[in-house]
């Protein structure tokens, strides 16, 4: 079963062959490394850029203007914050020209904690990014969605931000990606570790890959339930699913939604679920002040104040300047399984 890193690679390969993807670039994205998470290994259009995030985003905008579809990588989202103005520029270009220009381009960047990344390899980017108008923003939590969302990004005519939960890059999923061989993928598309073997290596891409897409803006129910709605994405999503499984043994039936798209997001799916469960917990790992989950809470109370039988809650990262390196610090700074279990229990306990 493909990992997220492999799913990205296959989607980009499919894009190169079928969707006019012309440039995959960023720091260490090309040979020899193929990306710090191997997500761009073996791709024919991948190349190494200068160490310059502002140049990378600027180049992506220009390539889009020239009609050349590209995927630009920022090595870690922790290093994207010197280019927020350029992300805003990409997001306002169609609007400020009253529809003259559109920018079909994708930026991808790893986000989140989970690898003991300390201050600068643990950042989340959902809060700031959802505050920037004009983009579509996705974040998968399993390989199949990774593939499908990335294909959708490559087909999209507006700027798309593809956030990769870095803690899960090498995790396999439960489902095959359409066209993925049932076994042996690693031997086909992973560059050998052995130096000699790696030298003239060429990937053997699965020939049956398709344009399987996950529509941007569509979430997914990953656990059905009637007692509480839990909405999450990225690294914390599987933890929410696990928490639901664990609590089901206590008779608590949590409905878990994988949002997948942060903008636009699947409000219809959330609404239906809240109307059923009458309470909601939003979970993400960005710092909790001016957090995207707070937007979702605002909308929840805007529309469902009188349908709620408990206050809607947010479980997010502590409002501190970074995630500390030590295991003890990381665990205490961003939501873990036990925090999610506790939070669900506490919302349910507060239901009237």
């Amino acid at each position: 079963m493909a990992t997220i890193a492999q799913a990205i690679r296959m989607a980009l390969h499919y894009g190169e062959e079928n969707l006019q993807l012309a440039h995959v670039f960023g720091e260490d994205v090309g040979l020899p490394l193929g990306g710090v998470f191997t997500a761009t290994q073996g791709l024919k259009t991948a190349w190494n850029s200068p160490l310059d995030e502002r140049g990378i985003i600027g180049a992506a905008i220009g390539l889009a203007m020239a009609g050349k579809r590209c995927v630009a990588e920022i090595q870690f989202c922790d290093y994207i914050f010197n280019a927020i103005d350029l992300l805003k520029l990409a997001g306002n270009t169609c609007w400020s020209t009253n529809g003259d220009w559109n920018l079909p381009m994708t930026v991808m960047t790893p986000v989140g904690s989970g690898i003991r990344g300390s201050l600068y390899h643990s950042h989340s980017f959902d809060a700031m990014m959802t505050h920037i108008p004009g983009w579509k923003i996705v974040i998968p939590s399993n390989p199949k969605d990774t593939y499908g969302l990335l294909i959708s990004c490559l087909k999209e005519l507006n700027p798309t931000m593809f956030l990769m939960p870095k803690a899960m890059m090498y995790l396999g999923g439960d489902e095959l990606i359409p066209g993925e061989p049932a076994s042996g993928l690693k031997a086909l598309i992973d560059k050998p570790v052995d130096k000699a073997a790696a030298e003239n290596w060429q990937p053997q891409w699965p020939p049956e890959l398709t344009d399987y897409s996950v529509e941007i803006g569509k979430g997914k129910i990953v656990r059905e339930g009637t007692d509480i709605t839990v909405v999450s994405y990225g690294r914390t999503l599987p933890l929410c699913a696990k928490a639901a499984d664990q609590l089901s043994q206590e008779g608590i039936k949590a409905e878990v939604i994988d949002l997948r798209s942060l903008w636009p997001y699947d409000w219809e799916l959330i609404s239906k679920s809240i109307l059923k469960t009458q309470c909601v917990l939003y979970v993400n790992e960005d710092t909790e002040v001016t957090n995207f989950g707070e937007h979702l809470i605002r909308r929840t109370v805007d529309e469902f104040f009188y349908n709620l039988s408990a206050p809607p809650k947010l479980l997010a990262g502590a409002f501190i300047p970074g995630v500390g390196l030590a295991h003890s610090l990381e665990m205490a700074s961003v939501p873990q399984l036990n925090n999610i279990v506790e939070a669900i229990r506490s919302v349910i306990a507060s239901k009237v």
Partner: protein
Amino acid sequence: MTTVDSATLLKIHDLMVKNRLLEERLITMFKQNQGFFWIGGPGEEAFNIPLGLQVKKGHGLDYDYLHLHYRSSGILMAMGMDPMDAIRQMKNSALDPHSGGRNFAGHFSMRKWNVAPITSPIEVQYLVAIGTAIAQRDHGGTGITIVNGGDAGTAEGDFASCLVWASRPKQELPMLIIVTNNEWGISTSAKTQHGEKHIADRGNAFGIKTQVINGNDVNESFAAIQEAMHYVRTQRKPFLLEAKVSRLYGHSSASGGMFNPNEEDPLPLLQKKLIAANLLSAEAIETLRAKYEEELRLLADQVKTEPQPDPHSIYDFTYWQQQGKYW
């Protein structure tokens, strides 16, 4: 140095007058409360018109891409932009094709001619230009990427990024990198901020060809642009061209939009030469001036009657072809 033939000189002069009067019309509109803010390029015509005339105009990779500063009306005028549209933008008319009344004067966007939207943030155009230049490097042909901006803005790291990306070994970009040096950034004198003798010298370390010219001289400008463009079009490598220009009406309407007699005005300079060469008479110049003045005044009157943007349109085009509130 090539000398410019008489017909071209006269054409340049004609466009310079027209462009100057357009800018003066826009300033007048500001002073008459027919617009909230003016910024533009009076004083840069002797460089900008020759540049615009030599652009390979069209849509797509075979043509030049332009990533311009907010003082570039002369370039677009020489390319054939309708002055009416500049006036519409000044008046934030709903019919303004550059921004639909959303953006400031001088912030043009013309996708049909590869003119990237002009942005208020200084220097980001030097980054965006990298992208079209990469596409043109791959594409080949003779289309190039042209980017310009002011002197003060080169202090932003983005200017350096442009030089870095344009000069990567074996990946050089076909890019004409221009700095229009008027020796001011709003109220700040270049003398107090620049340790460089010439800004263009910054290209040397990167092996980028450079030149510094008097942008107030039409002949010098035309020839330098021609040579630089020829180099970039054929060698597919970057060229950094610094043009000394004037800022005739101060920074913008925020600084009053008043004529500054201490700045050299390229227009009478050229006119003196044309008269001396018997190419034009003082009367003919006056007639030309009066003609354009009247034309532009009429356009401005007409724009006054155009509708303002519909408040319900604020969400339109947040995304490509999207209309109305989308969430």
